[in-house]
């Protein structure tokens, strides 16, 4: 697996007084993006996203330890969740629920066990974990809660939703880094990266960034053609198929002689 390094770089300390914000306890996450794109090539089989940055302080840190929560969220897409039931001896879909916004990918990495890092109230306020993010305000969900639970369960089993506690390296309460494995079946779109700095289980500061995931080269060309000129794409598909078939039979005839 190729290692894709997305460096959220540590910015050098700036004049401190100007950066102090009230209510943030004088602590701030400072980052810069050195890469803002994941390229999907023909041989793409997933990659590791390496995220790192630092905390800048205007005053010495309080006694309670600080923690980091990192969220990587894929594009939000609507899905239908269906439930099967046995009808006359045969399993068939009987009920369905519609979820307006379900992330295609969602990874939460923390610097410690989640309950010790983030309180339930803060989790809800910032929509951090998957169940919270999916049930957040603005998402229209029809049907019973068991459907949402099933959606999360299935995607967790597929490795698309996950929580990795302790996966964030947090040194001296200043430097942090984490590696998030992106699966091979990545959906194209904008991926949100959210980093929360917490203290005493409460969010002190957060930072948001976006990286684009998109196809490049022949992948991009084919995809664009299929959307922008479908008849041409269809004819190209047929031409390739016919040519391949004809070439093969010609080659076979030649070999038999």
């Amino acid at each position, binding site marked *: 697996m190729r290692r894709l390094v997305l460096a959220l770089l540590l910015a050098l300390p700036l004049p401190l007084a100007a950066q102090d914000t009230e209510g943030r306890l004088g602590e701030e996450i400072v980052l810069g993006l050195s890469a803002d794109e994941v390229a*999907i*090539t*023909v*041989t*793409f*089989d*997933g990659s590791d996203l390496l995220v790192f940055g630092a905390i800048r302080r205007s005053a010495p840190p309080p006694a309670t330890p600080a923690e980091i929560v990192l969220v990587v969220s894929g594009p939000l*897409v*609507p*899905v*239908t*969740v*269906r*439930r*099967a*039931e*046995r009808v006359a*001896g*045969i*399993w*068939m*879909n009987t009920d*369905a629920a*519609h979820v307006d916004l379900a992330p295609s990918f969602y990874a939460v990495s923390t610097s410690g066990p989640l309950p010790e890092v983030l309180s339930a109230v803060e989790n809800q306020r910032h929509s951090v974990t998957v169940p919270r993010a999916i049930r957040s305000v603005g998402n229209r969900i029809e049907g019973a809660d068991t*459907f949402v639970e*099933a*959606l999360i*369960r*299935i*995607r967790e*089993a597929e490795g698309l939703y996950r929580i990795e506690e302790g996966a964030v390296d947090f040194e001296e309460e200043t430097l942090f880094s984490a590696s998030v494995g992106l699966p*091979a*079946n990545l*959906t*194209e779109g904008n991926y949100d990266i959210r980093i929360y700095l917490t203290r005493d289980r409460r969010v002190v500061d957060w930072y948001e960034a976006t990286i684009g995931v998109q*196809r490049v080269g022949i*992948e*991009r060309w*084919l*995809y664009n053609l*299929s*959307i922008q000129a*479908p*008849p041409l*794409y*269809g*004819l190209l*598909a*047929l031409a*390739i*198929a*016919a040519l*391949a*078939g*004809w*070439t*093969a*039979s010609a080659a*076979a*005839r030649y070999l038999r002689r």
Partner: protein
Amino acid sequence: MQLYLPIAEVSVNAFLLLGLGGLVGLLSGMFGVGGGFLITPLLFFIGIPPAVAVATSANQIVASSVSGVLAHLKRRTVDIPMGLVLLAGGLIGSTLGIWVFNLFRSMGQVDLIVKLSYVLFLGTVGGLMFVESLRAILRSRRAGPRPQRVRHNRLHALPLKVKFRASGLYISVFPPLAVGMLVGVMGAVMGVGGGFLMVPAMIYLLQMPTKVVIGTSLFQILFLSAYTTMMHAITNQTVDLVLALILILGGVIGAQVGTTIGARMKAENLRVMLALIVLAVCFQLALSLVWTPSELYSIDPVEAT
């Protein structure tokens, strides 16, 4: 070697796909079936989204049947007028079938309908073929003169009679038109070429000689799946060229080997083998309908409109 498929948006092993294409090509060459009834479920199984699997296998079938049709044309085992009549029915049926497919998809019952149709048709066709071809083998073992089949049934006496020289038939165009239409509907609903349905229908219903059946059905499948590919590319954008290319590569090689094997084998033996494969797929699907699934819920992506 892993390959990322641009339309399906999944990464799969290239050699797995190559092998899959080869297996299906082999069957295509040997029996004159498009192989869609095998490749579509196999693609589901390795994680290709159903809509992409159905559309792309149509494109793959074009390639594997081109080489088959060319091989059969060379041996003059294609009844072209008969193929055209079957095709005309097929185009009507396919258009109808796509409408039915979309209806069931909006109801969330596509999986069930597809599986049920598979079980029903594969079971019936496979069972009939198996019994009939076993009888044929037993007859030829006894070395007695082969009794003539009943030549004409009432269907053949309908109006608009046409002479199909290569098949040695003088029958109404309606039975082949109906067969073609049925195949078109099944093809669109089940995502298959429909050869497994057409071959027995041609043998038992139209009573065409086995030798021209395979070439003629491939001929119809070629143009019908080309039509289906275009329909899918234009309406759903679900044809994956990279996926198709790998399957085709494996398929064309398999088809050549298959045609050679098919030409050397006795027709009755070929039919028993095809019947067994059809029954095996049928059994596996029937089991999946009755067996309690480990996960009762499933996720359906909603297409952006």
